[in-house]
């Protein structure tokens, strides 16, 4: 079972919910898909047993064979190649690694080399009651603009036998879509403010287009207005949990401490949340 924890708006508590859920759910696997700013490791403190580079193919021009015809530059939709006189320039930060230039070159003068854009770290963490929690995260290199290829690699490590939890990046564009694709269920974490609602509506739109069933968790549920509840009622989206603001909890979070270890009632709350998600997926 693959569950995405997403939000639209940043800072609503995706990582808090994803890590706490991973800590109480039996046979769980936590995969951090927020590769630009991965934070789950700060709370789960995993033992990393393996580190792999994530690479992307980029073109390499054989100047001996190149006739400077310019077809590669014309074919590239990302303007990652330019032919100026007798020189082919490759702008690797614009390249998407699609292979169109290699394919089109009539002289077979373009081969591919790889560029490291980030890494994957794989390990295990201690869960609250179960023996082991499987941990994976992707980390995008600073200056690398493209996160979807790294997210894709993280998702290749999903273990189907586990309760796999994908911690999604904020927003509603490619990195978030890449994370949600193929999930069985999406839990949106929101807060009861105009920003929270505005971004939630957009994010629910993505889940609906992808035909992924979804539910809502309202974090800091007493800190704004009641517009989220009204929206959920109107749209018939189930609210699976509400967590009121708690300064002690926010303090524990700030130190990287998991809520379920601090509070028995939250531990039970997250166990219930796990059961509700499983029930929702079964529907």
């Amino acid at each position: 079972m693959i569950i995405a924890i997403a939000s639209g708006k940043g800072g609503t508590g995706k990582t808090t919910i994803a890590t706490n859920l991973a800590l109480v759910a039996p046979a769980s696997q936590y995969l951090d898909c927020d590769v630009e700013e991965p934070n789950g490791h700060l709370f789960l403190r995993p033992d990393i047993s393996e580190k792999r580079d994530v690479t992307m193919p980029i073109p390499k021009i054989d100047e001996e064979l190149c006739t400077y015809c310019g077809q590669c530059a014309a074919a590239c939709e990302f303007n990652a190649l330019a032919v100026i006189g007798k020189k082919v320039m490759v702008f690797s930060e614009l390249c998407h690694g699609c292979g169109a230039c290699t394919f089109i070159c009539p002289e077979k003068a373009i081969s591919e080399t790889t560029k490291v854009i980030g890494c994957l770290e794989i390990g295990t963490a201690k869960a609250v009651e179960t023996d082991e929690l499987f941990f994976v995260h992707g980390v995008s290199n600073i200056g690398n603009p493209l996160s979807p290829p790294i997210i894709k690699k993280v998702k290749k490590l999903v273990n189907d036998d586990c309760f796999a939890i994908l911690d999604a990046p904020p927003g509603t564009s490619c990195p978030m879509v890449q994370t949600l694709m193929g999930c069985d269920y999406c839990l949106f974490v929101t807060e009861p403010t105009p920003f929270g609602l505005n971004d939630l509506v957009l994010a629910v739109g993505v889940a609906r287009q992808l035909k992924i069933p979804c539910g809502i968790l309202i974090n800091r549920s007493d800190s704004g207005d009641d517009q989220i509840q009204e929206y959920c009622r109107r749209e018939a989206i189930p609210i699976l949990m509400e967590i009121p603001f708690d300064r002690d909890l926010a303090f524990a979070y700030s130190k990287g401490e998991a809520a379920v270890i601090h509070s028995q009632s939250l531990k039970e709350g997250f166990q219930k949340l796990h059961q509700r998600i499983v029930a929702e997926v079964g529907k």
Partner: protein
Amino acid sequence: MKELTIISGKGGTGKTTVTAAFAVLAKNTILADCDVDAADLHLILTPKEISNADFIGGRGPQLDSEKCTRCGECQRLCRFDAIDFSEESGYSINEFACDCCGLCALACPEEAITMVDTINGRWFISNTRAGKMVHARLGIGEDNSGKLVTLVRQQGKLLAQKEGSELLINDGPPGIGCPVTAAITGVDLVLIVTEPTLSGMHDMERVHGLCRHFDIPAQVCVNRFDLNLVNSQKIQDYCTEHNLPLVGEIPLDPIVNKAQVARQSVVEYDCGLVSQVVRDMWDKVEKELNL
């Protein structure tokens, strides 16, 4: 004309709260909401639209199934697993997985796939009580958010020139990826809004790394600083060590959410401590920008 971008790395640290307050405090400014896939600034500034236009982000493949002979070449070559196949309907393009690279169109021996302009969103110029604003809406699940950010910034600059404004304030997106890069390259100053949590600090360091990568001057503001004073001290130490001016520490106060629910910036809603800190911070930023 000067350009300021407000970013954070981590989402939800208060970028838009700070941007909206600065917008109200700044005189003669233009605003650009560069968080195009989860734009929120309009919720506070309630813009009145003057003009709007489609955002043509690039081109995307269109498959003519009449011409398709089901040779499968497109699916074999596609590196994004974006070509689906079913016995009933043959090949089709999964637009969510598609990267719009055009390789399938180049490769199709039947020329059944052509690249056509794609509309990925809309952008707007509006009047607000704090000045004119450029903002956009990326279509749901659409690509090219970096390009749309670039467009919003360009339009913001044009507007600032036209109106004779001396400042463009960009509300940035979270993360460190392509939309963030598009929002900060070449600006005069970046303000990083962080919070004293491990996540906030971790992400501030990464986004500061990005600023250094592009050689852009940055300043730091700590939001909800009193949530964890030990961590706030660590942020101060980091700033001192890296020669990063720390321009303000905003306390954790329910007034921030109340202002948002009332659709006002904190400086309009209240004149308490939060408001005072934000005003002081604006004075420092204004000075740094030589306005």
